[in-house]
């Protein structure tokens, strides 16, 4: 097909697209190389602070990373979730794909795996992510993802405790707002 090779990715992250494209069209890289190195560009550039270190702090102010890589030829998958203290999430995912028979490693154990594979432990917190977390706390922890707890999570920070399903005001999902700068 004359339009191939082809790279597409979500959002306007053209530096990532360009890196993947160069690997496929000029450097003889594989499609796995293209995806890994393309996504790694966004991890280094902290694309919109939605990828990589220093973005989307959790309620404790920690940034954790999720990544996946899938090989169409073999249907093999490597993935990491809630990866702590390692910046190169997509490369760790590729190591899961290439060096294990598992699909998904999570949390601190994923970090241990990464370190055993030669990745460096680093602090994923930055002044920017600290400011995001401080601002959220100053706004009474709004928005957040709690429901059916006390104190009222729509006005108060935690710690929270569950309320009975028989209590008035029991709710289903009231989704916090996702947008261009806050997404999975």
């Amino acid at each position, binding site marked *: 097909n004359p339009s*191939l090779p082809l790279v597409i990715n*979500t959002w306007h992250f053209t530096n990532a*697209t*360009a890196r993947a494209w160069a690997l496929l069209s000029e450097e003889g890289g594989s499609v796995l190389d293209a995806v890994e190195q393309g*996504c790694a560009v966004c991890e280094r550039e902290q694309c919109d602070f939605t*990828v990589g270190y220093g973005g989307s702090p959790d309620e404790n102010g920690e940034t954790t990373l*999720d990544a*996946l890589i899938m090989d*169409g030829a073999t249907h093999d998958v490597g993935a990491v979730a809630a990866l702590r203290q390692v910046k190169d999430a997509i490369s760790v995912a590729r190591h899961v794909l290439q060096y294990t028979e598992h699909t998904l490693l999570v949390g601190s154990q994923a970090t241990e795996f990464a370190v055993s594979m030669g990745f460096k432990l680093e602090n994923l917190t930055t002044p920017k992510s600290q400011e995001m977390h401080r601002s959220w706390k100053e706004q009474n922890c709004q928005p957040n993802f709690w429901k059916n707890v006390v104190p009222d999570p729509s006005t108060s920070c935690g710690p929270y405790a569950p309320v009975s399903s028989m209590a008035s005001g029991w709710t289903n999902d009231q989704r916090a707002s996702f947008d261009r700068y806050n997404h999975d």
Partner: protein
Amino acid sequence: TIGMIAIDKDGKISCGTSTNGARNKIPGRVGDSPIPGSGCYVDRNVGGAAATGDGDVMMRLLPALISVEKMRDGYSPEEASRMSLQRIIDYYPNFEGAIVSASLDGRHGGACNGFTTFQYSLADSENGVTTVDVSC
């Protein structure tokens, strides 16, 4: 989040995702990005798809898998993207998210819901590196 699909000149395909997830999430929460069929999915005989948005919802309805299966049924990447999002919207009308899909013959398309705008990035032999605007 970035979700990417790559197809080489021989039709080999892969996909990947990388994200730091939702802002202010409860510690330990994981979204759709590391879940096959949700954050992204590829099939060597069909094509691939990658999704972005509210990962708590997407991981319940596997939009990337659905889009690839719709392409297998003969729908275009744009149609398949819309249909996979509609599956989510049926349950979550206020869902905020988007999906991009590509078939092995080089066609591509996207769909979105709840965002004011959505762009995806594209590189192919005809256009070089560019962006595509999708109306939500």
